[in-house]
């Protein structure tokens, strides 16, 4: 077949510009994507990797020609199936769209029309395309084409759904009635329904849990093998890419730095940025070894350590009252935890497992249905909020961009807890704040203290958040996914900082995460939370090396593995050259 000799998609010198209002002072057009060229072979999985804001999504919108104003394609060509996608008319483009070139969008949550049921969303595509599709594929004149019956269409849809391991029942459901994973599968099925040549997958799994992520990628790979389409995978998750892709393109600041096979990248990362990325993505393993040393040294003292926080038989039940019935939802069941001074406990679980609820109980933002919480020796009174405890437990939130009120300066954010908890007098407060900033590595502190949050980078902001949490001199720090919103390259430093602070201040840290590698890197102990129950608990190394509970086993399996240089991959590599 002649297609074998030509690449399926050939993009050359793409440039995308965001136009801005030139009547405003100090604004200029922003070139989002510049001089990007690559090609995709038939059946290939081509991955584009880059940090957020590097222009990945703009690129695919340009290829699909779904750029929204003020973006314009300001240069380049994109040959797909022999025609330049940038030059053809819109009706021609609409014929190619979906039947040959489909998309799995970034967040399946919002990608489905919430007011139409799943069947209607399939139907839209089928009605639009079946006629053209058949006319493209068959030589019959259009008048002779018989419309496929609804029954036939339905069969086709059901078959496709089966490919993504969904039953036909979902067809009559609405998007909000599906779980995140199911929605993602539906969007994949939707992308497959017309058996396209190329599927663009825009971060198809970021919104999902680790386990689901893993399963869906397995499904996609299986389907590619069965149906033989090509994939353009957009992601920021380098480990995933290194383990799956045929070739990888690395993007930074709108430019394509390098295209290579995963093996080549691992063996010879010529560019600093790439090396940094790869290094960052490999953190887990070396850090885990590192922390093992700490744990081993701490182990003899273990029994002597004082308990900072203890949870005994914690139960949390949410009651929902409607008019005629009240429903109960058990979020936490008999949770028992012990956290020692100067130690880190990682609470690992999928989203919805009850991690955040547990944190809220410790923070006294909510009261447990039953069970007891002890801080040191003292039991928390479930009836009233105790100011003193508030001083002793502080929290670092997930999103450093949201956790600082943009209308206040850094000084304000740091001085408030100092004043509220009367850590120091009003005269000393500024000096104290400066000292806090220095202690979290924002040095020289006087350069930062009068800035507004927006003038800081994400990593710096998270440091401010940590400084604020430390201001009231707490005994216990709860960190809710403190690094998940940060770019990979920044995570390491922040985790190191946390570790250092814990040791300095003899703090206890409750680290809430869904990311096993972070847990491995930082924690002395791990507790695995599944559906409100702690299914496994123990020393980090033990749990990870020898997972007992099936859930833990699945978790550990889902950690992306750095690829081995297998023979098959070498083969593909040769083909692509």
């Amino acid at each position, binding site marked *: 077949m002649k297609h074998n000799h030509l690449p399926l998609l050939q993009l050359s010198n793409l440039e995308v510009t965001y136009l801005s209002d030139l009547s405003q002072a100090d604004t200029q057009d922003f070139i989002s994507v510049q001089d990007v060229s690559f090609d995709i072979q038939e059946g290939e999985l081509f991955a584009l990797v880059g940090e957020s804001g590097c222009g990945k999504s703009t690129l695919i919108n340009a290829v699909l020609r779904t750029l929204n104003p003020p973006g314009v394609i300001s240069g380049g060509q994109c040959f797909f199936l022999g025609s330049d996608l940038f030059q053809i008319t819109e009706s021609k483009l609409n014929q190619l769209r979906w039947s040959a070139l489909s998309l799995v969008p970034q967040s399946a949550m919002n990608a489905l029309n919430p007011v139409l049921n799943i069947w209607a969303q399939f139907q839209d595509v089928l009605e639009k395309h079946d006629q053209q599709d058949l006319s493209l594929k068959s030589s019959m004149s259009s008048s002779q084409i018989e419309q496929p019956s609804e029954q036939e269409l339905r069969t086709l849809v059901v078959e496709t759904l089966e490919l993504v391991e969904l039953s036909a029942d979902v067809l009559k459901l609405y998007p*909000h009635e599906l779980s995140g994973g199911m929605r993602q599968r539906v969007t994949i099925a939707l992308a497959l329904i017309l058996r396209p040549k190329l599927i663009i997958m825009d971060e198809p799994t970021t919104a999902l849990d680790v386990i689901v992520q893993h399963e869906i990628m397995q499904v996609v790979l299986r389907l590619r093998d069965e149906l033989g389409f090509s994939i353009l995978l957009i992601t920021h998750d380098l480990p995933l890419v290194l383990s799956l892709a045929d070739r990888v393109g690395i993007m930074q600041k709108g430019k394509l730095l390098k295209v290579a096979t995963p093996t080549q990248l691992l063996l010879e990362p010529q560019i600093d940025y790439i090396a940094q990325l790869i290094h960052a993505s490999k953190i887990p393993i070396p850090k885990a070894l590192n922390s093992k040393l700490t744990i081993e040294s701490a182990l003899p003292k273990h029994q002597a350590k004082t308990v900072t926080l203890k949870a005994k038989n914690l139960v949390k039940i949410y009651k929902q009252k409607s008019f005629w019935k009240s429903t109960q939802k058990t979020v936490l069941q008999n949770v028992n935890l012990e956290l020692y001074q100067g130690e880190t406990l990682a609470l690992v679980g999928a989203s919805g497992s009850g991690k955040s609820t547990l944190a809220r109980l410790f923070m006294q933002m909510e009261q447990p249905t039953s069970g007891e919480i002890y801080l040191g020796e003292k039991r928390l009174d479930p009836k009233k909020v105790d100011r003193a405890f508030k001083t002793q437990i502080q929290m670092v939130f997930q999103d450093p961009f949201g956790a600082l009120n943009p209308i206040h300066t850094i000084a304000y954010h740091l001085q408030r807890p100092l004043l509220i908890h009367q850590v120091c007098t009003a005269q000393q407060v500024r000096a104290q704040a400066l000292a806090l900033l220095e202690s979290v590595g924002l040095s020289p502190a006087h350069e930062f203290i009068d800035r507004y949050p927006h003038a800081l980078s994400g990593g710096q902001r998270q440091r401010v958040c940590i400084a604020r949490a430390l201001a009231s001199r707490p005994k216990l720090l709860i960190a809710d996914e403190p690094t998940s919103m940060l770019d990979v390259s920044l995570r390491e430093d922040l985790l190191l900082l946390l570790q250092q602070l814990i040791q300095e201040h003899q703090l206890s840290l409750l680290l809430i995460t869904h990311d096993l590698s972070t847990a491995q890197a930082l924690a002395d102990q791990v507790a695995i939370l599944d559906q409100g129950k702690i299914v496994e608990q123990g020393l980090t190394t033990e749990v990870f090396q020898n997972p007992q509970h099936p859930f833990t086993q699945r978790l550990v399996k889902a950690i992306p593995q750095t690829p081995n240089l297998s023979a098959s991959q070498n083969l593909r590599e040769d083909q692509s050259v």
Partner: protein
Amino acid sequence: MSYILKRFVLYFLAFCVSLILNFLLPRLMPGDPVGTMFARFKGRLSPEAMDALKQSLGFSGDSLLDQFWAYLHSLSQGDLGLSVAYFPTPVTEVIATGLWWTLWLAGLSVLISFIIGTSLGILIAWRRGSWLDQSLPPLFAFLGAFPYFWLAMLLLWVFGFQLDWFPLRHAYGDDLEPSWSWLFISDMFRHAALPALSIILATLGGWMLSMRNTMITVLGEDYISLAQAKGLSSKQVMLRYAARNAILPNLTAFGMAIGFVVSGSLLTEIVFSYPGQGYLLVQAVRAQDYPLMQGLFLTITTSVLCANCLLDLLYVLLDPRTRSSS
């Protein structure tokens, strides 16, 4: 269906509150209704006649609570009492003369205004940045800034009085018998044209602008991009994907705003001598006709609540998320 139930409880609550407001407001205010009524006789009334009439009107010396129970009791039997200003005609009869005309005029103009406004909103959101998008909102903001009755006066003057294109008053020709004939119905439309137009002109802009803004928000959603990537026609993306979702928050706002529009149409009715509730209400207030006021307030509130109920049913029909219990 808990959504619907919740809404209905709200309407019931609103109904109760308006009942209580209805009852309390006129009674807590100063004034003497029978005295007002007989003020028309310029003091000719003998004290005996006054007492006798007071008795028959139910303005007795009972406590407020007793009066309230009596009020509720008669209300439950569909009896709103006798009108003071139109004594001895029952309030229900007085209201019945105008209720349907108010519903017809307000309903017609609200619907037309909402449909056109929303359609224009969809259109200018889709073609945002075009000259239509730049000129329509300010134009309708300007028109909407005029008081309803002022526009009504202007339209009456230009199209009714000067050009003589439309009738000056009433809901249909005085020489016509109400019937389902083409003649009567066309006459009804003709008479409704100007009052409706003044309401439509004044309210159109609001619907248009809010639809445009929600449309623009919705157009940024992922499912719109996906729909485009699916190769669907722009018409289908615009209506089935964007407008279909954008209309939902606007429907809620529509329900809340019906009260405002009905209020405005009362003023328009007065300008056009439309035989609706508007002038009845003003007259009832001027004559301190408690029973009539209560009745009018109650019917207006109830009709607005009913319209809201209907809207909620429509909403449930349009938004599957309200249908599931989760």
